[in-house]
């Protein structure tokens, strides 16, 4: 089925306007698409930022735990009591240069 000649004629006469119309539609959809994309990216960025904050909090708590476990005097007394380690006295000390 072919279009009547006068419609063809009409299309040819306004081809530029039809082209612009197409562009308008395209741009409208791309706006929608990119807005959507933007929102998705923003939301996943925010999720990551929240995750970072949570990790920071965890890190701080771990630091606390570490500093209480690795207290100098605690380790020294544990080394002495559990592992029977002792400080070498002066006479058994050898200095390597």
């Amino acid at each position, binding site marked *: 089925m072919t279009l009547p000649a006068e419609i063809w004629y009409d299309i040819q006469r306004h081809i530029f306007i039809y082209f612009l119309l197409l562009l308008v539609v395209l741009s409208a959809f791309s706006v929608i698409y990119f807005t959507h994309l*933007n*929102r998705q990216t*923003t*939301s996943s960025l*925010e*999720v990551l930022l929240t995750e970072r904050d949570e990790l920071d*909090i965890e890190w*701080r*708590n771990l*630091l*606390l735990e570490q*500093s*209480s476990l690795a*207290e*100098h*005097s605690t380790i020294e007394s544990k080394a002495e009591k559990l592992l029977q380690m002792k*400080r*070498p*006295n*002066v*006479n*058994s*000390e*050898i*200095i*390597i*240069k």
Partner: protein
Amino acid sequence: MKKQVDKYQQISVAWRFYVVVALIVLVYAGLLARSAYIQIVEPDMLKKQGDMRSLRTTAHTVQRGSIVDRNGRELAISVPVETVWADPKIVMENKALEMKKHWQALADVLGRDVNKLTARIIKNPRKRFVYVERKVSPAMANYIKELKIPGVHLRKESKRYYPSGESSAHVVGFTNVDDKGIEGVERVYDQLLTGVDGNKKYRKDAKGRKIEILSEKTSTQPKDITLSIDQRIQAIAYKELKGAVKAFKATSGSVVVTNVNTGEILALVNSPSFNPNNRRNTAIHRFRNRAITDFYEPGSTLKPLTALTALEFGSAKANSIIDTNPGWMRLGGRRVSDPINRGKLSITDILVHSSNMGTTKLALSVPKEYLLDKFFDAGFGEETGIGLVGESSGIMHDRQRWSKFELATLSWGHGVASTPLQLARFYSTLANGGVKKPLTIIKNGTLDTLPIADERIFSRQSSQEIVEMLEDVVNDHTPNAKVDGYRVGGKTGTAIKAFAGGYGNDYVGLFAGMAPISNPEIVVVVVINEPGGDLYHGGEVASPVFSRVMKGALRVLNIAPDAKRVAENQADSNKKTLNKTNIKKEQADV
């Protein structure tokens, strides 16, 4: 018939047509009017409704900066915690108290009695805010959140922890409830430690996701403060000091450890101390950083300064002999004396026996102004540059008239009062070959502060001579202060405590010294205030603490032993076995 129909149609069409057109126009006009009304006349209400459903603001709270020691160990750290609070009105409206099991669980996790807990909340049902528990851990907070009791909410807060506890409490200081530093380093560097909170305005979608960031105020991160303190030495010093203060029944005590070459303070401890993590029911006097606020007459620990002054002026040489016969003398009607007549003494002997006669003669051998200038130069009567709150500059009178007797008392460290920190500064200067450096509590190079110029106040040669004499003092007179394997120098001091109107029965035992003598690195000053037992002399109460702290510090800083005896032993044992060497090597690495 047809004509009739046409006519009928025509009439009916025209009539209905206008009605329909009018109706449609009316509908559209109505819609137009309505949308114009919404859009132009009163758009705010709908905007507000929309924003209420989608617009949110979150605050981005910045934690207070950490305070770390020179090796990066945390001395103060902020951790976000949650505070549980209740809205009694909502609790009552929702009849939340009927959720017995939930309340029981809440009380259990908080370690409280459930009846007391609920009674507190419903005491005033019209109130809108009651604290349930402040600063709970994140795990606990999650559990409470899961209970979903209507009217019980969580709020973010920040809690400051001091992992090093008592030992560094005075230096680090603490913050108040509002996270403002009110003591110590926390106060001095409060501005640097405090960041600025940011916030974020965003739109959320129906599922609560953030889909559009509308505006953002970025937060400013605070700075971390790196102290010059070495927490390992600090812990050793505190342990030893606490033990000594208890053993000698002393009122208080302070230890200062400094790095001679840089003027950095490696340890600064006081006893009694307090627990900065829980300051409830702590006596106020415990908060005082005595090493910088309290001053004592330094007693004989200043005798090296008198001797140094005489050497500097040239009125005595290192090998000069001073005649202290007959062991006493009169100065303007006052008597200066030694316990026994010690006869002729070298300068070393004067320091070893702590002869008052000797230092008096040395002090009177130089002009008055010169002596006083050297005392001021040594830093007595001025601040040490540490910059902590409440630092006292001691007492060193700047007056024209000094009687000979007053100069004599000055020569053995009375009539002048200094903080333990000032004394540490003088000994650091001495150990540093006469170059006076400002003391600092901040690790060098971590804060962009203007460096204060060093100042040479004694010649290298005389300082060196005095330092070597101090080694003899320890070897001949204060065996308590010795450290195996190292050459140690120092001077004891025992001062009778002065109060308004005279001297009482209380003593202050001091010891100040340095090691290793071959190339001094560390100065340790120990002050034991008002020892209550039978022992009170500086050589008895302070020097054992000095010895242990010095030993610990030398070990921690990995400073090689410099005593001869060690070198010989080393040669011997080197021959023995190779195997042993390997073991030691591993230990040395650790």
